[in-house]
């Protein structure tokens, strides 16, 4: 399966090679900065809240090559393998949503941008004139003449690190984007349209230390696995079901001498929610402050990123946290805020669990939007 995946990756890369890549970041030029001046900030309401990443086993593509039987067997195996991890990730997302509802996230980000209003004065380039929120599920079109802020909050697979990712875009119908890059032949279509300004900002929290496996910890792990497997009525899974097979596999893994990322998450997830989410609040507040501050600085920066650039250390904060501007590659020009002393490898999975309350929120907003559209017709 790995072989096929890698072969496909090589093919995909070959296909991409025909389109000349350019950095994702789109800086403003001096005339545009002067023209923008006081700029409205539109924070896209985050609906997913803090999500919990996990690895979803997916053998659908490989199984498809073995015909219908392969598809059925693959789906059955995937179901067993994914049952417990998905359920546990959802549980963590639910707990995170209890201490940090999506609305609280949005209010915090609005506050962070509001605090930038006083820092800029007219005539000093791009400054924040006002801050509002916009619901993209009901108003998906770009907001004209406003800096749009889209956020994503994701807890790592082992729950040791929270990653806050933000994409900023500014579009203005009166000032179309003109690519600053030169191409052999016509520019790619992606360089002919889209926002005048764009960049991404990523904040990684301090990394929680990984617990050491002790006999007591192993007992807690086993208890947690059994608790995760019970149904709504508290009954353990029936033998032969996906839930039972998944629990059995997890119990076998719990008895070895090493903690997997998923097992570590069982212990570390609690650190984010204890004391009414004090740690979560503190990190999100730091992330929002970083994003609001550097958004404004970057909108007044005219340097055009290059695929062959060099990483730049922009700021070193107390405690060793650093802010860096990515140098090479398509993410050139984007900003990262990273902790000082990382000691273990982190991954963010290929699936993100959303809390039930946030899933319901998204569904309700979509239904209201549909109803509104029907009424308008």
């Amino acid at each position, binding site marked *: 399966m790995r072989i096929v995946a890698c072969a*496909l990756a090589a093919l995909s890369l070959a296909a991409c090679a025909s389109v000349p890549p350019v950095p994702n970041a789109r800086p403003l030029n001096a005339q545009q900065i002067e023209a923008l001046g006081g700029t409205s900030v539109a924070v896209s309401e985050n609906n997913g809240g803090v999500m919990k990443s996990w690895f979803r086993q997916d053998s659908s593509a490989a199984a498809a090559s073995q015909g219908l039987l392969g598809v059925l067997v693959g789906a059955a195996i995937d179901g067993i393998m994914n049952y417990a991890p998905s359920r546990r990730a959802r549980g963590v997302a639910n707990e995170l949503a209890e201490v940090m509802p999506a609305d609280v996230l949005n209010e915090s980000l609005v506050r962070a941008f509001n605090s930038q209003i006083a820092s800029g004065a007219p005539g000093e380039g791009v400054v924040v004139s006002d801050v509002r929120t916009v619901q993209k599920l009901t108003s998906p079109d770009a907001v004209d003449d406003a800096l749009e802020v889209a956020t994503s909050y994701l807890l790592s697979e082992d729950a040791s690190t929270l990653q806050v990712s933000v994409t900023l875009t500014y579009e203005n119908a009166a000032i179309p984007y003109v690519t600053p890059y030169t191409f052999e032949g016509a520019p790619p279509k992606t360089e002919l349209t889209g926002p005048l300004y764009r960049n991404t900002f990523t904040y990684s929290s301090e990394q929680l230390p990984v617990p050491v496996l002790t006999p007591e910890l192993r007992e807690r792990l086993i208890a947690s696995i059994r608790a995760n497997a019970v149904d709504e009525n508290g009954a353990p899974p029936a033998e032969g079901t996906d839930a039972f097979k998944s629990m059995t596999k997890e119990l076998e893994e719990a008895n070895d001498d090493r903690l997997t990322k998923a097992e570590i998450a069982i212990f570390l997830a609690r650190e984010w929610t204890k004391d009414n989410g004090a740690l979560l609040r503190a990190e999100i507040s730091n992330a929002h402050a970083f994003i609001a501050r550097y958004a404004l600085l970057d909108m007044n920066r005219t340097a055009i990123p290059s695929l062959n650039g060099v990483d730049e250390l922009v700021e070193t904060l107390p405690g060793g946290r650093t802010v860096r501007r990515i140098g090479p590659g398509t993410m050139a020009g984007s900003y990262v805020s990273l*902790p000082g002393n990382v000691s273990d490898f*982190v*991954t963010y999975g*290929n699936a993100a669990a959303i809390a039930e309350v946030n899933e319901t929120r998204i569904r309700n907003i979509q239904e209201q939007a549909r109803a509104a559209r029907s009424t308008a017709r």
Partner: protein
Amino acid sequence: MTGIRLGLAVLGVTLLAGCVTDPGYAPMDAAKNRYFGYVDQPNGDGGHTIRVVLPEGVQDPRAAFAHWDRRAAELCGPAGYRKLVHTARRNMLVMSGYTPTGYSYEVMGDAWCNDPAYTPAPPPAAAVPAE
């Protein structure tokens, strides 16, 4: 179609076979198709940014941290260094329809030499075979 798929798979194996070997402690060199190992550059703040990438199949992924420290020691000499390791991640190959597989372990951070005047010795010149 099956033949094409098989051909692609063989191509993938061939490509991977050339790049997943554990390089041990060695510099990266894209010109020689060495994408694993260590690389460093001045960090613009009087120090060095060091990056170590080891392939997924490496026996001990934590060797990436050891390689990072070894390179910092080489750059800074006996007076030692102050360090900030800011990134440690396991990079994954993620494709829809396939279970993600590990690709590499990456460690990155800054080292500031306690003796900024220290100049590391140049690497030994490649041996020239006798004629």
